[in-house]
């Protein structure tokens, strides 16, 4: 079993249990929001997805920095999978956010809101990561350039977040702050469990994809070792590290 497959089953089970508890708390424990009512339940899936996606982008940047420092291609693969997963979570954030916006504000999207627009900018920025990789044929150069991109774009995420927080005019409500925020205890507990569940889901899927990639590479290496270089089909051009 590869390094990434170790503990995957336990983590997956813990993830399923945590998400089940979180959704049970969302619908049976957390009170209805006085202002928004039942529609506020989207908060418990939308915000954890957003936080996990943004942290995933930063995580990808850290892995990219580790690649640049060590030259070990495993860090590049970790960075690639982290950003790939964060993009999927980001798509989930955008879709659930649009649904919430439509129900709450009557519009699918509000361009004047800095939180929405800045998240879209981050998403568009990281959406160029895969085409960037694909455009570079040489694997070494691909890893190096992609890591530089991951570091710079990853550093942009917290800066962007701080800039939006500093903005004065916004439509997006501010319920999470460093001083405690506006959530009552039961809502806070539900939110923390939901956040833990989504973060664990990210970790599980990251490990899952890493295990799959690592296994594919091992099969390829085994073929090369047992049957020689001729027996290995040349790699097609791909955005994924190979």
């Amino acid at each position, binding site marked *: 079993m590869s390094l990434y497959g170790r503990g995957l089953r336990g983590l997956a089970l813990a993830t399923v249990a945590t998400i089940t508890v979180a959704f049970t708390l969302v619908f049976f424990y957390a009170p209805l929001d006085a202002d928004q009512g*039942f*529609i506020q339940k989207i908060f418990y899936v939308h915000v954890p997805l957003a936080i996990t996606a943004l942290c995933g982008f930063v995580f990808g940047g850290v892995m990219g920095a580790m690649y640049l420092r060590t030259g070990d291609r495993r860090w590049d693969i970790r960075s690639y999978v982290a950003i790939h997963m964060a993009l999927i979570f980001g798509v*989930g954030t955008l*879709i659930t956010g649009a*649904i919430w916006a439509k*129900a709450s504000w009557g519009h699918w999207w509000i361009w004047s809101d800095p939180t929405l627009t800045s998240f879209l900018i981050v998403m568009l920025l990281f959406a160029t990561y895969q085409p960037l990789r694909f455009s570079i044929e040489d694997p070494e150069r691909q890893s190096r350039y992609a890591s530089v991109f991951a570091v710079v774009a990853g550093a942009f995420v917290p800066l962007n977040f701080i800039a939006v927080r500093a903005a004065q005019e916004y439509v997006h409500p501010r319920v999470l702050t460093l001083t405690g925020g506006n959530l009552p205890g039961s809502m806070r507990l539900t939110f923390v469990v939901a956040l833990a569940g989504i973060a664990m889901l990210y970790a599980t899927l990251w490990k899952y994809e890493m295990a*799959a990639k690592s296994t*594919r590479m091992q099969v390829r290496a085994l073929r090369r070792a047992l049957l020689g270089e001729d027996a290995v089909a040349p790699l097609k051009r791909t955005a994924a590290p190979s």
Partner: protein
Amino acid sequence: MSGVVIAVAPALPLHTAGKYVAAAYIVFLALVLVYVAIMATRLARTERDLAELQRDVLERRGESDGRDPDARDSGREREPVA
């Protein structure tokens, strides 16, 4: 068990906000399911590659045994490839 859960479950206001809430949670679950389905097809491909490798190795061994009898290592037990 499921009967108890349904009995204590509050009625969802599906005529108003409920459909939006349901849509948001369905989107989340659909994303996870689609991802897992894609990974499952990749896993199947890896299993196929592994089986092909095993077959190729056995074929090569058979060929080399047939061509060069002196190269046979009869004293060593062969281990399965996978």
